């Protein structure tokens, strides 16, 4: 994995992006407002096949992205724009 497909910009070099955090594996694109804030902030469910992450195309279009990757192979499974409902 040395490129990420940005929904706006297409496949771009990894160095244009910055990773911010992982989500609990079960979390969907929609942040679950009722989820326990502590767990959301601190706990991680390690799944060697799936990591769900927030990235920003910081040296590009600056879009925030929801990225699904396989951390054991580096394969990018899906990238979409980050979105959710009001807190």
């Amino acid at each position, binding site marked *: 994995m*040395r490129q990420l497909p940005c929904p706006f910009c297409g496949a771009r070099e990894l160095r244009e992006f910055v990773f911010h955090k992982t989500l609990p594996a079960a979390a969907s694109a929609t942040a679950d407002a009722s989820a326990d804030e502590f767990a959301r902030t601190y706990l991680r*469910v390690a799944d060697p096949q799936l990591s769900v992450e927030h990235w920003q195309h910081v040296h590009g279009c600056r879009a925030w992205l929801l990225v699904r990757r396989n951390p*054991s192979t*580096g394969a990018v499974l899906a990238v979409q724009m980050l979105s959710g409902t009001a807190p």
Partner: protein
Amino acid sequence: MSALPASARHYSAWSLLRARFAGSGYWRPLWAGRKLKPAYDVVIVGAGGHGLASAFHLARDQGMRRIAVLEKRLVGYGNVGRNTTIVRSNYLLPENHYFYEDSLRRWETLSHDLNYNVMYSPRGVVDLALTDDSMLALARRGNAMRLAGIDAELLDLAALERFAPELEARRKRRFPIVGALLQRRGGTVRHDAVAWGYARAASALGVDIIEDCEVTGVRTAGNAATGVESTRGYVQADRVVFATAGHTGMIGAMLGTPLPIETHLLQAMVSEPIKPLINSVYVYVSPGHGETYICQSDRGGLVMGGHLDGFPSYTREGVWHRLEDVVQGALELFPRIGGVKILRQWAGTNDMTMDGSPIMDRLRYDNVFVNAGWCYGGFKAIPASGAAFAKFVASGTAPDLIRAYRLSRFASGHLLDEPGQGPFPVRL
């Protein structure tokens, strides 16, 4: 005093001379050749630095007899053999500096304790400051160390020039150097020797070290584990210890317990050997490319590392642009090494906790223990970790030295966030 019983070969110049005439048959395996038994008092998962040191101290100090260390691949194949070999105790928070100082004191005598030369080299660890503000932050840290009885010196530019002429501290730089915090007793240790030395000493004390044996599950009854499933079959265990570094998150998943840990990659690299040039360990954080640390091994290679690759990974394949960052930092410090060549680059998987400090605690079951979350600083912790954790596992009570490393601190707020970075292994 050596901890080894007579069954092992004592190492000395004399033993080498004897072997010279007796041939290679003189030497004995350091740990190899043991058979896995059906039951143990303690089963330790992971023959890295922490697992092996824990086994050694359980056997030597805690009087435990039946101990096994189960290793998926090879002794010392993980981070203990992949790090940049730096040892130091220059931490800010008391919970950390007392612990790491205990470790540093053990490093000072470890070669004697293990009768194995781990090549502890107290050549000084120099944290460089690029602004007056960072100089003050280093002063805060250094003063905290000094009050705890730990050696620390604040070097202004003149003192830095005297201590580290190779640095050319006054050289014109994009980010000029202002001063440094020096810990003279900090330095380096030959990493592989630590794994092998502990494995040999533990084995001599009766610990069974079993390689190519992957633990695949834990059998439990009520609040307790009864043993582990492995690729070599079921092993009964009164206590189970996990010391699996970058794979700790998966252990949590295996036990159904999410942990405040993410696994990230950290790269390191070494140059071709050259004659002595860099005499201490230099740590340098620039606003541009983040962290670079550099030292020169006794073989002559320049050993360099930096910050994390920047996203969770189990692949052990570093990304090239992080390597560029580290090299750019190294050249900012030592422009003269521009013509020296990089020989090898590798990466290790790091168990990053959400406050950057380790976790030594029970894990879900009364008799399951986890020694993890060492982030990128686990190597220097090995001797203290082994001694204190062995006491914990044997007695069931965490010694004062590691009590702060409990898992509940994240929920209670007793965080040990040394850099103040919050629950993010990678700074945004």
